[in-house]
């Protein structure tokens, strides 16, 4: 095997497969529940991608990523209710605010690493929750913002389950294409080298802090878009969208799907949002069973579900991956 064969010449093939699947799903499925759930799953997957940009890309656990998800949601909510913006306007406003805020926050917090970064970012999200609760006239306080006007994206009505699904899926696809490009770019390589060994990276001329900051801002924008995409589903914007719960869900998706794999979070989101709905058990039994299943999965395939797929592929190819 020559050295050049390492080069992945078809990085966009999985994207194409995804697009075909999305198209087919929208055509075949008519049930509004499955369609809206599909759309919401896309929003969650997008959020999971943003988390994985931090987790797999930067190597930090962004426990406070929901801050940006919530900003996206509140962007739509406040934009539409208080400023009379369109849905697109709200989405854009949320993304811009998220980008600006993440720049400021990143400048302060990205000097921290490990648990310290995680907890501080969680702290910021928690402060945001308190702010959302207390700034009642702006955020609707504990009640949140509801009775939002009809939402249109590129002229299409998001209250139609099919359209919501397609648009959310399109946004997700766009994000994936962007992330593939990031992975293969100078920025992607720099980021990866920073994650693996920041001392060496900086000795090679890479501005460690800047790469981390760039990734952080990008992930914040993705999270904000995901948050905005969740609003047509929930129809109400509350402080829950800023809270740790949603981050934890997305983190579980990422880890379940696999951190080292770009599509892992999407797989995780699929498993995560669909399976629990079909476990026909008493809710608490279901929660127990699901949690235990997650633990077992992590015991058996510590690198996430994609490890199964990988092992299968290499088994088929007759190569055995060696790791100790």
């Amino acid at each position: 095997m020559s050295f050049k064969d390492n080069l992945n010449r078809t990085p966009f093939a999985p994207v194409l497969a995804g697009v075909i699947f999305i198209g087919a799903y929208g055509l075949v499925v008519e049930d509004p529940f499955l369609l809206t759930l599909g759309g919401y799953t896309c929003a969650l997957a997008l959020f999971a991608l943003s988390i994985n940009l931090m987790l797999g890309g930067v190597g930090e656990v962004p426990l406070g990523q929901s801050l940006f998800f919530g900003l996206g949601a509140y962007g739509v909510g406040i934009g539409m209710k208080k400023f009379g913006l369109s849905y697109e306007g709200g989405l854009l406003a949320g993304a811009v605010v998220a980008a600006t805020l993440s720049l400021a926050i990143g400048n302060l917090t990205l000097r921290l690493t490990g648990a310290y970064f995680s907890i501080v970012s969680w702290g910021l999200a928690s402060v945001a929750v308190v702010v959302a609760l207390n700034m009642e006239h702006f955020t609707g306080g504990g009640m949140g913002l509801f009775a939002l006007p009809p939402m249109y994206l590129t002229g299409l009505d998001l209250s139609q389950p099919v359209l919501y699904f397609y648009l959310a899926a399109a946004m997700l696809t766009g994000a994936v294409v962007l992330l593939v490009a990031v992975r293969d770019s100078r920025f992607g390589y720099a980021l990866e080298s920073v994650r693996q060994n920041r001392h060496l990276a900086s000795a090679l001329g890479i501005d460690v802090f800047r790469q981390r900051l760039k990734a952080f801002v990008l992930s914040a924008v993705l999270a904000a878009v995901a948050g905005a995409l969740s609003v047509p589903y929930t129809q109400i914007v509350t402080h829950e969208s800023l809270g740790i719960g949603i981050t934890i869900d997305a983190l579980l998706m990422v880890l379940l799907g696999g951190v080292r794999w770009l599509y892992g979070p999407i797989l995780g989101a699929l498993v995560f949002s669909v399976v629990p709905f079909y476990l026909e058990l008493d809710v608490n039994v279901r929660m127990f069973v699901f949690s235990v299943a997650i633990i077992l999965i992590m015991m058996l395939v510590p690198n996430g579900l994609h490890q199964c797929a990988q092992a299968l592929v290499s088994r088929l190819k007759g190569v055995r991956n060696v790791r100790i």
Partner: protein
Amino acid sequence: MYVSDVVKIAEHARVVRPASSLAVAVAVAASAVTKRYGGIAALKGIDLAIEEGEIFGIIGPNGAGKSTLFDVLCGIVQPTSGEVQLFGRSISGMQPHEVARLGVARSFQRTAVFAEASVSQNLCFAWHRMSGHSVLGRLFHSRHWHRDQEACQDRARHILEITGLWEDRNRSASVLAYGVQRRLAVGVALMTDPEILFLDEPAAGMDDHDSAGFVDLIRRVAPGRTVVLVEHDMTVIRALCHRCLAMADGRPLVSGEPLDVLQHPEVVEAYLGAEDA
């Protein structure tokens, strides 16, 4: 007695300094550099002038401050007082990556490689900083991007060959034997095509064959660069260096031609021990 390659090469092929330069420019200059850590003075006043194109060795007992000096020269550690200039530019206040961008690469005493990546990926990481495509470039200039990738691979292949890592190119860096990792660390530094190369005990842990190969390698890549190396292996120092500096206890002890330095009684006493003299 087994005569190592190093010695053999050393006998009939001493590197000759580029003679063309009458007024040689100074690549690395340090003046009155000190470094204190609380009560510990790691450097107590170092003056240094390393000329462009020189291969310069630094030796000294453990804890003499060699690695600390490297850290100061590369901007990783800010000196307590004194100044460092690279190519006549002061680096005080510069971040390590800014110093690196002046054309400086270094290897570390504790082997530093990208552990999760394969050997060839390790090299690509080093290359991409300078020549890789931007995100938009990746999206919209796919052809260029592919050409870039090939350029990267060509250079990586070259480095793999001269460092003798070709066989190991697809192995993960973390599973390499220690000596092989040391070679990779040198390869990664070389991948950036640096003008100044700082190597901290590069041959430590290499077997005789590899360190001979290493000497060869440095000779090959040295023209047009300045190489500064710390070593405890005197064969390497003798074979490679044009000049060298012996340090002890954070101070310069002796400097000059390697053979002179190595025979200097103070160096023998503090560093080499009687027998090797």
